[in-house]
């Protein structure tokens, strides 16, 4: 592909995760390099979403370590992950349904807010200025995602495809250095998928954001990703550039062969 990547910024080492007797992840190691688009694929229930949940601390693995920019975490939590510049979208959209599109995106700015509760209550200078500055930043995201026409709409009223886009917008509003996307194109029509693909590539390209992408559509995965991890029943069965993965017989039989 001829693209240049930086150092490994996210390294997972021997991660195992179980829910009671169900082993969601078994001894998984892989890394993510700065600036790349790293795909995770695998059949339903393979443990892909669990993997993302481990990375940003929603799930605590029983074993293993996460090394983020050289810093070791055995216990990640969502807040630490957010502070470290990791943001994400969700497989089942997890927007704030009662809030407008703008407010949803503004929540993405939360970690950058400096004014305190009293200043906000009095709409005091710093709070007001900050509110305006973040609004301007959020408007940039809105323009980028071409959702100007719905900025005031409560997200609960939006169609599914647009909700997915707002979900991405909220993650982008954080100005993340690592973006985790959990099936951002699931349930979309062809046109919406193309738009979403374009946004993902643009984010990666324009902002240099590292992206970890879970996707079912093999065409998309092979097109956009730089390297691919393949999971099956919570085990890693393949890892490499798309062509390598495609040629791996184990992957073919487990996943591409559509045996289950």
């Amino acid at each position: 592909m001829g693209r240049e990547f930086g150092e490994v910024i996210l390294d997972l080492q021997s991660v195992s995760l179980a829910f009671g007797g169900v082993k969601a992840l078994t001894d998984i190691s892989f890394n993510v390099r700065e600036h790349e688009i790293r795909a995770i694929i695998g059949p339903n229930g393979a443990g892909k979403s669990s993997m993302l949940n481990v990375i940003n601390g929603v799930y605590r693995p029983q074993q293993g370590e996460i090394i983020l920019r050289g810093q070791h975490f055995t216990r990640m939590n969502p807040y630490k992950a957010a502070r470290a510049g990791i943001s994400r979208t969700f497989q089942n959209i997890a927007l704030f349904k009662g809030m407008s599109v703008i407010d949803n995106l503004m929540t993405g700015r939360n970690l950058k807010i400096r004014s305190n509760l009293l200043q906000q209550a009095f709409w005091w200078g710093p709070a007001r200025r900050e509110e305006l500055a973040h609004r301007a930043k959020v408007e940039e995201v809105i323009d980028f995602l071409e959702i100007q026409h719905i900025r005031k709409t409560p997200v609960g009223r939006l169609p599914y495809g647009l909700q997915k886009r707002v979900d991405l917008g909220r993650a982008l509003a954080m100005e993340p250095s690592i973006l985790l996307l959990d099936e951002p194109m699931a349930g979309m029509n062809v046109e919406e998928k193309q738009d979403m693909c374009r946004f993902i590539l643009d984010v990666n390209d324009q902002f240099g954001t590292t992206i970890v992408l879970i996707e079912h559509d093999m065409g998309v995965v092979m097109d956009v990703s730089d390297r691919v991890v393949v999971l099956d029943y919570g085990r890693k069965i393949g890892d490499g550039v798309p062509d390598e993965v495609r040629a791996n017989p184990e992957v073919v039989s487990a996943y591409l062969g559509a045996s289950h």
Partner: protein
Amino acid sequence: MLYRENGQFRTSYAADQQIFPIAQDRWAILAIVVFAFVGVPLLVDEYLFRAILIPFLILSLAAIGVNILVGYCGQITLGAGAFMAVGAYAAYNFHIRLDGLPLLVSFLLGGCTAAAVGIFFGIPSLRVRGLYLAVATLAAQFFTDWVFLRVPWFTNNASSGSVSVANLQILSWQIETPTDKYLLCLTILVVFALLAKNMTRCAIGRQWMAIRDMDVAAEVIGIRPLFAKLSAFAVSSFFVGTAGALWGFVHLASWEPAAFSVDRSFQLLFMVIIGGLGSIMGSFFGAAFIVILPIMLNQFLPAIGRVFGISISTAGVSHAELIIFGVLIIFFLIKEPHGIARMWSTGKEKLRLWPFPH
């Protein structure tokens, strides 16, 4: 064709982020506030002040507090009455124990004490939600009932927990007549409502709503549930506590713990459900509704009964009141969880398009 936003282009984010971005709304609110300060005192008699307006203002303040917690942050509470009691008795103790403490400072310290107690009883919210949290906040209610009845220190050794205050004064303003009391409550309410509105349109308000709507996503975005929930309990209890102080000092002048019973907690919860969860304006609607409905029923139900040749007793009226509340609560919970406030804004939206429905 008067209610229009045509031609009012908002050319900056600042203009767009105003509390009332539409000019007509701004003027209407300003007119209402001016009328409330200037017109009402000229027009209204003593009975109306005592029976309706003062309770309405104070309960609106408390309802805003409950709405912050229940409507904005999604944490159920049945302890509002308790936090009113804490506000009232704390303000009372500051008032009588610290000589020369300005009255307003006593009120605010009452609110702060309620905030502290609110934070304490909010701690379970970090672990449990829904019914379990309701029970935990109900514990606050029983706890305060007991404390103010049984620990004589809090009531300055008065028997049965009954206390009274007299000669209220702010600087050189003697608060004696119902008009004085009304103006005092109105001023405090206007300021507090503005503070609440500001908070709910700022970062802290978005944190509360994010926790309400989807707590996992909120955490992932860097919102700490601990801070968001406990700050909602604190701010809410501060409002409710200040309202409690006003209720005791200004409305009742002498009171006992029964004034802040669990009935009050339920009443406040009903107000925000009927008025509109997650709406400052809704808190006013709800308070107005619940204060006025019983009085209306008292006036009109017997009269209507006479028309049909039925005599309706006082007990009958109060039963009817309970039935009507029950039906309304069920109606709003099922049909319109955003209450009267949502009906109001839908109505306005229709008005904006009127006479062309599409």
